[in-house]
């Protein structure tokens, strides 16, 4: 026996044990065997085995033993063990051996076993394994490189098992999953275990022991690429940021670890990290100069996060650019970033073809980097920036989208202030909204003292809180001072009368006849009379339709050419309302006039847009049923009725109330009569609105090129046509209109301007809404297929979100209409 090597000895011993376990049924034997096996794991002074034996057992036989135990778990002897013995002997074998082998066996067992008591047993052991911090031991053993030099496959498996543990258990246990295995909890545990391992590493390094952080880095990378980076980094990043604040060893360990993250996982780690850290300084402490040493990291930080992705918050941009600006060695990168960002911002094609959100994001990045660079550095980039500013602003200001124009203005203003071109600054007039405010806020540096130490924070807080508390006390004595005898001094006992009749006095009286009105508007130089005429014009037009018909076109012409010479309040709306009234009351001649003028020479864009608006509003008015005048006698009585005493209730109300209270109702039906059907006044004249506008669109004039530069008008026109189409629903002419509109729209469906595209899609929606479904299949059968493909294409690929949603909507409408028709092919005539 003495001559036997420890290896053979151990092997013999283990096989004996197995033998006993399979054959024996005696309690004592089994306990003895388990104790023997346990003794190979003890390394205390009381241990009966030599260290060589222990090493050999752990190297070669441990996994085998565990496998054996797991596969024999339902053997009789296990049941005969008492609970205490069970935990002591059986579980101990799993919890005290080399952790990675135990974990692998456990996970394999969980994967292989069907739901049973045995599975439950393994789950409990796994839970204990995690709770006892064995994961940290596992990581630590890899840090020390004491773990057996494993094959890449083994390591890959181990990584996979550790990272995917929640998935594996969830797949096996389904609804009976333990809370500890849920991702939220497990990854938080994993994060703390990683921190423990790193802490031990730091301690070991301080004591002069060599350590490696490769395994932890790999775990981190794998977790991030699996999409759980946010949970892990939410725990890890603040801790690392706090630890690296003063400790150089920690910093070294962090830098080393991030350097060791495999290239393919680097991106997900970095994106997670920039979102998890609290400020640029923290990022700098954790990743060091990683951007300079690691190509992948450089690409991610300086290119991908800034120019290719745009989902991050402004804070992330601040962190990234602040990180680049914080170190002398990284500043050249910041200048490079500024160069590329400014090119991206100024690129006219990007302005047209990228989504608005991305443009905002890039603008923020541009402003941030400009604000971070010093004046001397900006001098170096001056010519490029100037070029970017001029070109970029031009393409932004050319855009039809208000937000893009506004972004152009804000960025232009900020750049010109920052660059200090001969002391001149750009200044635009624009309305501030959330976006511009956010952009402007980007230029003001945030307090760099990010995340102060957790301790001091509370102390800083407390005086503020006491101040807040004391302020109301200070305020209180003041309030009585403001009005010392407010009770005595109030006028509240006197209730005011209705003062709505208190209006400004007019010096002149308004004209009573529409012809006078026209005269004044045409030739008068008296501002008061012009204003009065304009104010009464709409009511005069509506009051006397016959008089209106005589001069409708003339008045329309005058109004169309009228300018706001006297700065009349509400000029535009008054003018528009009058023109709408004219169009509505004398439809055919006025629409004829307006649609012809739309394509003629020497009108400004504004005037052409006005024409479109007037036509659209008039069509809307015509398509609405006439306003009912049922309650007008009541109103009339109301105004003439004298107030008697102080009872404000109208006598009719009182009478009505009495009648209501005396009337018994059998059923609570609707007391209001249902709306009366009225003919759609728009239907007979829809063609007059619609077809003349389609006639001349492709004949460019000197001053007006619809298919060229004037795409704003084109977009509005198509939108208006769509509106006509929508309002002409159920009209006999709708089918013809729909066909014509689809034909027209086909030519401009891939227009570069999103306003036009939106108009086109709106028009298509309207066609599908308004066209009777039976006509759709018969008249448009050849086009429908192509239209569908085009819509699907837009719905997927258009950079503008509105266009995408409109396309989806059109597809839904089309499908609905087609389905209806195909299900009921015999239906004749419109359903409604």
């Amino acid at each position, binding site marked *: 026996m003495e001559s036997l090597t420890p290896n053979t000895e151990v092997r013999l011993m283990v096989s004996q044990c197995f033998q006993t376990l399979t054959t024996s049924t005696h309690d004592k034997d089994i306990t003895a065997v388990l104790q023997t096996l346990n003794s190979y794991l003890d390394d205390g002074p009381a241990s009966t085995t030599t260290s060589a034996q222990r090493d050999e057992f752990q190297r070669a036989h441990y996994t085998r033993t565990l496998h054996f135990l797991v596969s024999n778990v339902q053997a009789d002897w296990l049941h005969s063990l008492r609970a205490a013995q069970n935990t002591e002997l059986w579980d101990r074998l799993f919890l005290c051996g080399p952790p990675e082998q135990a974990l692998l066996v456990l996970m394999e067992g969980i994967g292989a076993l069907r739901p049973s008591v045995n599975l439950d047993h393994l789950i409990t052991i796994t839970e204990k394994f995690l709770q006892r911090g064995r994961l940290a031991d596992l990581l630590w053993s890899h840090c020390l490189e004491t773990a057996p030099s494993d094959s890449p496959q083994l390591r890959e498996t181990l990584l996979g098992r550790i990272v995917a543990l929640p998935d594996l258990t969830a797949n096996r246990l389904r609804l009976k999953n333990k809370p500890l295995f849920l991702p939220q909890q497990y990854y938080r545990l994993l994060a703390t275990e990683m921190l423990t391992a790193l802490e031990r590493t730091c301690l070991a390094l301080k004591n002069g022991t060599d350590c490696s952080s490769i395994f932890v880095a790999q775990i981190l990378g794998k977790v991030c690429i699996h999409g759980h980076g946010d949970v892990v980094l939410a725990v890890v990043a603040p801790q690392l940021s706090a630890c690296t604040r003063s400790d150089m060893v920690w910093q070294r360990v962090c830098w080393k670890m991030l350097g060791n993250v495999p290239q393919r996982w680097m991106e997900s780690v970095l994106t997670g990290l920039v979102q998890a850290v609290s400020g640029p300084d923290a990022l700098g402490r954790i990743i060091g100069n990683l951007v300079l040493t690691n190509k992948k990291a450089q690409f991610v930080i300086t290119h991908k996060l800034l120019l290719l992705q745009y989902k991050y918050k402004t804070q992330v941009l601040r962190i990234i650019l602040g990180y680049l600006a914080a170190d002398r060695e990284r500043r050249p990168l910041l200048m490079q970033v500024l160069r590329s960002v400014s090119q991206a911002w100024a690129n006219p094609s990007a302005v047209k073809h990228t989504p608005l959100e991305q443009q905002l994001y890039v603008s923020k990045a541009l402003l941030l980097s400009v604000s971070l660079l010093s004046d001397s550095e900006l001098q170096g980039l001056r010519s490029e920036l100037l070029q970017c500013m001029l070109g970029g602003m031009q393409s932004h200001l050319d855009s039809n989208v208000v937000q893009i124009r506004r972004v152009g203005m804000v960025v232009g203003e900020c750049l010109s202030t920052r660059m200090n071109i001969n002391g001149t600054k750009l200044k635009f007039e624009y309305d501030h909204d959330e976006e511009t405010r956010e952009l402007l806020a980007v230029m003001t540096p945030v307090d760099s003292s990010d995340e102060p130490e957790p301790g001091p924070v509370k102390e800083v807080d407390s005086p503020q809180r006491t101040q807040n508390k004391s302020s109301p006390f200070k305020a209180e004595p003041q309030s009585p001072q403001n009005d010392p005898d407010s009770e005595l*001094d*109030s*006028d509240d*006992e*006197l*209730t*005011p*009368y*209705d*003062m709505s*009749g*208190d*209006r*400004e*006095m007019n010096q002149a009286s308004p004209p009573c006849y529409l012809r006078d009105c026209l005269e004044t508007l045409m030739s008068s130089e008296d501002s008061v009379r012009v204003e009065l005429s304009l104010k009464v014009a709409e009511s005069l037009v509506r009051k006397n339709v016959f008089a209106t018909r005589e001069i409708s076109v003339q008045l329309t012409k005058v109004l169309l050419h009228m300018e706001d010479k006297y700065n009349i309040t509400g000029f535009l709306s008054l003018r528009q309302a009058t023109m709408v009234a004219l169009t509505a009351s004398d439809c055919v001649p006025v629409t004829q006039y307006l649609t012809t003028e739309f394509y003629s020479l020497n009108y400004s864009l504004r005037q052409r847009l006005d024409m479109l608006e007037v036509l659209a509003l008039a069509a809307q008015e015509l398509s609405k049923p006439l306003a009912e005048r049922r309650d007008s006698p009541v109103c009339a009585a109301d105004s003439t009725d*004298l*107030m008697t005493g*102080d009872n*404000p209730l109208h006598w009719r109300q009182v009478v009505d109330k009495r009648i209501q209270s005396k009337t018994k109702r059998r059923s609570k039906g609707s007391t209001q009569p249902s709306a009366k059907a009225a003919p759609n006044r728009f239907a007979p004249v829809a063609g007059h609105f619609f077809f003349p506008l389609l006639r001349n669109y492709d004949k460019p004039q000197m001053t007006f090129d619809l298919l060229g530069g004037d795409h704003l008008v084109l977009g509005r026109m198509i939108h208006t046509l769509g509106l006509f189409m929508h309002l002409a629903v159920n009209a006999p002419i709708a089918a013809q209109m729909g066909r014509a509109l689809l034909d027209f729209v086909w030519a401009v469906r891939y227009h570069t301007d999103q306003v036009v595209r939106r108009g086109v899609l709106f028009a298509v929606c309207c066609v599908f809404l308004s066209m009777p479904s039976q006509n759709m299949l018969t008249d448009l059968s050849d086009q429908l297929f192509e239209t569908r493909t085009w819509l699907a294409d837009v719905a997927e690929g258009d950079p503008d979100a509105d266009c995408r949603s409109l396309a989806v909507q059109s597809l839904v409408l089309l499908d609905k209409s087609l389905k209806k028709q195909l299900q009921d092919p015999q239906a004749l005539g419109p359903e409604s």
Partner: protein
Amino acid sequence: MSHPAPSPIYTLRGAGGPLNTLHFSCLAGDTPLLFSGSGHGVVHIWNLNSRRAERNLEGHSGSSVIWVNTLQSTGALLSQGRDMQVCQWDLREGRSEVVDSVWTGSVGFCQCSLLESSSGSSLLAFAGQQTEEIKIIDLPSKKPVCTLVPDAKVGMVMCIKLWQPDSGPGPLLLAGYEDGSLLLWDVTQRCKLSEVKAHPEPIMCLTFDTKRLRGISASSEKKLSSWILDRQNNLQLQDLSVTLVNPGVSQLCVREDGKLLASAGWDHRVRVFGWKKLRPLAVLQYHSDMVLSVAFSDHQDPRQRLLAAGSKDQRISLWSIYSEGANSS
């Protein structure tokens, strides 16, 4: 819902001219009377029970009457006309004759101000012959008391108010001038106590609440400005100010109980405000021309109190507004 604006309870027609000034005399026992001064030089005495003109007094030879008032002690009537005369009328026992008159020499529109003292004598302040000059005389005796002329150039006197403060020996006088400044004079010391620039335009009218030591003035613009007098007799403008819809106010009047302020607007409307906070309460629309005068009646019973407005359209409108008393509101 707020009440619709009220209508006048009755109107008095037949004055035959613009009504520059109104004065109530509704003390208990007597027939309630309303005196009005017209642009054609006639003082009408209206009986408010019969709602008719009782008597017409013509004593200013056709020149516009700009101010009427009664002496409580003797029941005599004072009227001021543009013929530079202030006449004293004896109206007792059906008489209607001028018993006395004072030559003022003023060509302006400044209304006189009367201060009756308990002893039976009273003080009358009026604008003098010089445009900036204010004269004060003792009434039955017609002895001049003093003449007040400001040192600084402030333009013509536009409106004055004479009153006796509770504390302090002598009467004080408030005067509004053409350049918009408001001066406080001590009549016994004959010196200026305080000055404030209340308006950029000439002050058209002012009224002063002697109990609360608070006044308000108006000009040809849209703004009314209110001011207070502190213990040291300093005038101070208050933040509390009112902006009207249409510019121009001819007269302001505070009701006896200090609750209401009424303004006679050039825009044909009478506006009623709460006096304490200057909260707009009502806009009274009836007249078809500028309202020239407003007055609150001096009825003993608060429920009978009326508001009268005289206009250029030759009518007087009478309104019962916020006169329910505290119990019914």
